[in-house]
């Protein structure tokens, strides 16, 4: 059931596609010293072969269009097809980024309206649409916070991150040159406020928090934490990965967050594309507004324009104005849902997560007390006596027609199984999913070896990731060899985000 690579199907004598000829007169020729010596070994395939090749590859994927994707922290909800139609409208898809502003008023207005809507949802003053993804948004927010402190003559070198945080948090902080200080989670799965107090100082630039946190629990002491952080002059940063719990329920801005990133590819239904493109806008409170990336979109005399003249801006974080096509999709979703629909979406997401959590009581370990918000973390450690791990549970779910939850994250829960059902899965699907998990737990007790051999009916079985990392083959070559030398670092388990 595997499919050869396009390169392996290539037929060396096949002519290229029919394309127009130049049809103009010129004597110019590219000088020899600039010419490519060896043509690139791209495959030579006919269109029928290409279409069949990629159709076959498509059939080897699980996707939200066909399977339930309970990936905790990833908010895999239904991607409305109208969003795709809107993004393909010629007035959007055909628009050149350097067209004069008077010929791009619709695009600028859409960006302005989207900014206003997102500001209303999260409770901030202004927002940049430029960052291309969540991690890019985190980094953009930290750059603004860094510039803010520097503008006040303060050299703050530390960023505090909870031990349960997404890996992108410490990585983004390090990319900004900050030293990462970890704060512990308490037994109840929430930030240990005493530990936070101990770690706060005037060296700290920011505390990065997810709320609800990665265990799906609301940080009850958020207001106290915000006060502590602000008292030291530091800023509070909100990782928006879990915003799907909060629309119309409460707002990060009201909790005291100074900078808020959002994942349009999670909460706002832009498709994940097998790993992007996403979009990671960042909203900020008033004192960070001068540092927003430029240009911003401004309304003036009934029209819209790009404002490049922002002297305190951190500059640009990417080319042009962001992943505009994803902004169109998210805006389409927001218009269709409205304030009422978005509120219902978050409430249904919370209901679904609690319902599913309750149905797994006694099936997997539930290490923290509920209720949960839009997701929850279970543990497969109750299966350890059978020699069954979270990874086996994940593979068992694939065999039973479900994508796997996020496993082995957050790091503070052993054998973590992190489940986020979202508001777009029916009760029948949720029931079928818990039935599948019960079947897996039964199999674990009865026939653990069978479970460890799953999946059996997918194009490939479990792949040897350790061997793949020791002797990496990162591209096709006529005769295979390693592309990065050998290494002894073990391969890592799958993870979220």
């Amino acid at each position, binding site marked *: 059931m*595997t499919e050869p690579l396009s390169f392996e199907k290539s037929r060396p004598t096949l002519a*290229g596609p029919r*394309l127009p000829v130049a049809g*103009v*007169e010129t004597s110019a020729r590219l000088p020899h*010293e600039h010419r490519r*010596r060896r043509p*690139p070994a791209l*495959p030579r395939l006919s*269109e029928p072969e*290409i279409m069949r090749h990629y159709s076959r590859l498509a*059939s080897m*994927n699980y*996707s*939200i*269009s066909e399977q339930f994707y309970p990936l905790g922290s990833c908010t895999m909800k239904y991607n409305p097809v109208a969003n*795709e139609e809107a993004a393909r409208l010629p*007035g959007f898809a*055909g*628009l050149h*980024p350097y*067209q004069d502003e008077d010929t791009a008023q619709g695009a600028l*207005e*859409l960006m302005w309206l989207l900014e206003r809507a997102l500001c*209303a949802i999260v409770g901030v003053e202004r927002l940049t649409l430029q960052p291309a993804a*969540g*991690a*890019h948004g985190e980094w953009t927010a930290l750059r603004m916070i860094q510039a803010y402190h520097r503008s006040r003559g303060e050299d703050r070198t530390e960023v505090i991150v909870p031990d349960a945080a997404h890996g992108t948090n410490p990585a983004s902080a390090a*990319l900004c040159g900050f030293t990462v200080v970890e704060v512990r989670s308490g037994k109840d799965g929430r930030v240990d406020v005493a530990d936070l107090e101990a770690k706060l100082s005037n060296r700290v630039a920011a505390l990065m928090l997810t709320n609800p946190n990665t265990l799906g629990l609301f940080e*009850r002491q958020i207001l106290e934490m915000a006060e502590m952080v602000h008292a030291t002059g530091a800023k509070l940063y909100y990782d928006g990965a879990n915003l799907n719990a909060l629309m119309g329920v*409460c707002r990060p801005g009201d909790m005291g967050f100074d900078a808020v990133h959002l994942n349009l590819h999670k909460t706002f239904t832009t498709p994940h594309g*097998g*790993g*992007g493109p996403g979009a990671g806008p960042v909203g900020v409170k008033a004192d960070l507004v001068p540092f927003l990336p430029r240009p911003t979109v401004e309304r003036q005399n009934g029209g819209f324009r790009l404002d490049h003249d922002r002297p305190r801006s*951190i500059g640009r974080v*990417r*080319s*042009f*104005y962001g*992943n*505009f096509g994803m902004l169109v999709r998210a805006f*389409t979703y927001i218009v269709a849902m409205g304030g*009422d*629909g978005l509120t219902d979406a978050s409430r*249904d997401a919370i*209901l679904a997560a609690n319902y599913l959590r309750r149905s797994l009581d006694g099936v997997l370990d539930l290490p923290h007390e509920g*209720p949960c918000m839009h997701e929850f973390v279970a543990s497969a450690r109750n299966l350890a006596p059978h020699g069954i791990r979270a990874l086996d549970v994940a*593979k068992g779910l694939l065999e039973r027609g479900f994508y796997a939850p996020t496993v082995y994250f957050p790091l503070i829960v052993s054998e973590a199984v992190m489940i986020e059902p979202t*508001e*777009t899965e029916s009760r029948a699907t949720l029931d079928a999913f818990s039935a599948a998990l019960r079947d897996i737990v039964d199999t674990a007790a009865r026939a653990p070896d069978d479970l460890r051999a799953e999946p059996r009916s997918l194009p*490939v*079985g479990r792949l*040897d990731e350790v*061997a*793949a990392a020791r002797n*990496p083959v*990162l*591209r096709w070559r006529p005769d295979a060899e390693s592309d990065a030398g050998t290494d002894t670092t073990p391969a890592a388990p*799958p993870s*979220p985000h």
Partner: protein
Amino acid sequence: MPYLVHSADDRRAMLEALGVESIDELLRDIPDRLRVRGIDLEPGLSEQETMARLRQLAGRNTVFEDRLCFRGGGVYQRFVPAAVSAVTSKPEFYTAYTPYQPEASQGTLQAIFEFQTLIAELTAMDVANASLYDGATALAEAAMMAVVHTGRHQVVVAGCLHPEYAEVLRCYGDGRGFELVEGLDRMGDRTAAVVFQQPSFLGLLEDAAGLTEAAHRSGALSIACVDPISLGMLAPPGEYGADIAVGEGQQLGLTPSYGGPHVGFIAARRDLARRLPGRLVGQAYDGRGRRGYVLTLTAREQHIRRAKATSNICTNHSLCALAATVYLTYMGPDGLRQVAEVSYQRAHALAERLVAIPGIELAFPEREFLNEFPVRMFHVEHRLARLKEAGILGGLRVGRWLPDLDDVVVFCCTEVNDPDALDLLVNALARSAERTEARTG
């Protein structure tokens, strides 16, 4: 409500199973003073009304005919084979997540493995990653690789780099702690890398081999920012010895979309593979000896190494990489060369005709170019406005970034600017020349 699945009965049954009266009881961990009731936004609309709203907004943008678009500057109108969107609009691709579970994600993983191979072949480098956000951030990631690899903290920009790319580099440098300077004369033993764009922002060909040699003489890395279509005819970074090649892949099957989403690519020498940012897909085998693909060398990445990762990137631009994969596979080596050659010939034919118009001359007549070229023009603003009236998106005025070149306009030509379109442009410019002469003369 659109896209919500539960009936009132479903909700009731779920609440009953939880032993609560209402969803509000599940929100008890949220302090009362934080609770809001709804969002200050308009109520939702039907799909029909929603789409009417979106069409109305789209209608307020002027869309120039592809063939009458002569403006580039990093985003180009190119012919996109129907096969590209036919593949990328398959929901099995566009609604899948990052391929964490390889057994259920072989389609995406194999397509990325093909993408990595295609980019490595195109750039003549050893390895390429699974994609980055865009050309500008790809360049910034490459610079950071060089900073870590050499332990040096200065990056030299040679030639005319896209001003927005330079601005992004500076923004990353301000955070990460490297300094960006311009001009080869600033090279020294603190230099981590020499960065150049080939062809340059103005469309001019740089001495890529010479710049690479200069970098290596100082113990710095050579980072080439390249146009992927150009590599159908132009010497690729691997042939002149660059250490890292990056670029923007928009031209490989993606629409302009007001600047994104597009796709950045990065390719490197084999010994730099473990310093690459982001996802890498590698070949693996299952217990029955079947070949498959997995995310690999993950020990570089944020979810494992956290603060010590090579980059913070997580979500990249996979679907755009898939578009590029289908595009390059469709074109093959001959198609890609033809696209590059046709663009080259049309641009040169256009340049020859433009300089015959009074008041227009090549800005750098001694320099070679490919399919984008700078001209000096009298009455720039007036002439571009006349073109706009004629439905033509004229060249890109660069004065807003490069004040010394305020009268310089960069025109680009691709395979979509057919000979009739060139005639229309030339005639419109000639007419505006006559009219300005008549008016000023």
